[in-house]
């Protein structure tokens, strides 16, 4: 285990962490405000990746792909929310699991019908396909770009949630929906916008993962489960918790896979989650007090 390898893996961990944050941000806020477990969030990630890959295949432009992915995911999210999921906010969690589970099956299969079985590949623009030196360690430029984009989005999101009026409504809704509603916050509207924004972030995460992983049906569920782990560790409804937990999960998962045996490495984050929950059952930064 050389220092350069450790630096590289740490960077990979942070990069996974910022991607997970993009995924968890929508998940945790949607859950915090509407008490709704949106298992279709992984499908929105997949839709973003496919929209990006298809756009790149059609136009040859990586930039257009990066723009198309969040847009497609946001539209899909809005359609899903207004047509179906909206009705399930007041229902119990069993119904929520079932309706999202059924939706995942249908969405996955629909994607397979449109794009077929073979995974799609996304290629990188020349500017991002090389390596850059970080502390003397060569690191893929694209992974660094993901890291930077992810951090910028994370900071922006943090600023919007913590420092703006819209963010205040969101936080108010997350910590106490009835009171926020009574104080004049249009919770359904804020929520629809939030759902779309969360979907857009998931789509962005999907298209950024495109060149690293292959774009295929079923790519959304493993990352969804990691994002759920992040949400649970961070405390449901807390954007700060999601950021801390996402970086923690990203780094522990990546280092675990390098340092431990495959069996232990893939289980490291779940053991960490169990340990954290044993001490703090509501996560690190619970939004509901």
């Amino acid at each position: 285990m050389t220092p350069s390898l450790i630096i590289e893996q740490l960077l990979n961990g942070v990069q996974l962490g910022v991607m997970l944050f993009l995924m968890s941000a929508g998940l945790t806020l949607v859950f915090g405000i509407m008490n709704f477990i949106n298992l279709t969030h992984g499908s929105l990630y997949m839709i973003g990746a496919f929209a990006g890959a298809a756009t790149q295949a059609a136009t040859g432009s990586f930039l257009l792909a990066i723009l198309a992915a969040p847009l497609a995911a946001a539209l899909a999210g809005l359609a899903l929310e207004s047509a179906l999921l909206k009705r399930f906010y007041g229902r119990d969690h069993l119904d929520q699991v079932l309706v999202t589970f059924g939706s995942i099956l249908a969405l996955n299969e629909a994607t397979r019908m449109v794009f077929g079985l073979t995974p799609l590949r996304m290629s990188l623009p020349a500017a991002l396909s090389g390596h850059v030196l970080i502390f003397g360690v060569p690191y893929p430029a694209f992974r660094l770009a993901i890291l930077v984009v992810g951090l910028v989005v994370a900071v922006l999101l943090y600023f919007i949630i913590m420092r703006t009026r819209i963010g205040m409504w969101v936080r108010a809704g997350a910590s106490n929906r009835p009171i926020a509603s009574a104080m004049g916050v249009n919770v359904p509207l804020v929520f629809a916008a939030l759902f779309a924004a969360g979907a857009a972030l998931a789509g962005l995460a999907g298209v950024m993962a495109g060149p690293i992983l292959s774009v295929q049906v079923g790519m959304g569920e493993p990352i969804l489960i990691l994002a759920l782990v992040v949400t649970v560790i961070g405390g449901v409804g807390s954007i700060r918790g999601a950021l801390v937990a996402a970086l923690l999960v990203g780094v522990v998962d990546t280092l675990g896979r390098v340092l431990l045996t495959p069996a232990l490495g893939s289980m490291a984050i779940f053991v960490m989650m169990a340990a954290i929950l044993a001490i703090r059952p509501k996560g690190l930064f619970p939004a509901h007090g």
Partner: protein
Amino acid sequence: MAEPPTPGARLRESLAPLLILAALAATPMIALALDDPFIVKVATRVVIFAIAATALNFVVGYGGLVSLCHAGFFGIGGYVVGILAWHDFNAEPLWFMPGSSDLALTLPAAILVSGLVATIVGAISLRTSGPYFLMITLAFNQMFYYAAVALQKYGGDDGLQIMSAITLGPIDVSNRYRFFYLALAVLALTLLLIGRFVDSRFGMVLRAASRNETRVIAVGVDPWLYRLAAFVVSAVLTAVAGALLAAGQQFISPVDMGWDRSGDLVVMAVLGGVGAVWGPALGAAAFVVLELVLSSWTTHWQFVFGLIVVLIVVSLRGGLADLGRTLFSRDKEEAKHG
């Protein structure tokens, strides 16, 4: 649910599982008459998933705890049987123990292992409730899945083929018909056991806690231990179902313990109706048959299936059991509240 059920309702509740079991028991004869052994294969699958769905429903329907790690327990049961059979076939001891292909030994081993794992997982997961519980159990399922994939020695991703002949004590159960009746007997025991639990004080505390936890605590009962006991019972029975699947098809793989299989089990329970002990058995039958019919129509059957699940949850809230009750009950009101 609060008032004692009418004699009619009570009779129906005890008659329904008998009818289900009798109908299943007749399938091998139909298979023989039609000379179509495939029917027995399907019926065995129905029975095995009926055991798992019935067991899962004990925590979902009566405990109000939506567990998404039951496919993990299902897989643990299967892998215990598979791994012990592997060591038997290769005549290589597992640590200090010899392997075995005798279900009289490997089923208790599966019960023991799954019981231990479920106690740990349950103790951690039950510190939380509601949606947290759901997400944590989903994460644990994924952990079991990765653990199975990492078992390189036992096939890893490709799954584990059982090469030795599976027996139950002196009886060879590799015969398809004999194996079916073994599984059916386990289903009958499971229905009986869960039925007794639901009607007992144990089941009453469990149901009461899922309705109103605060009141249960106020009368001086801590629901945690009851929930843990229910979780372990349910996990162990699900592992037995998994063990039977592995023994029956002589194969177990990580696919059998994926998170989507946990979702399938919940769908089976809800499809049949979580309000009746025997509901999930109906749901499992409907699920397996539906899967078979749809997949023979189109390779994209999951699309149709997903839509059906969505439609069910939008419309049919009491599951098939409620539909049956409404059809067979003269008193519609009773069916609604029963």
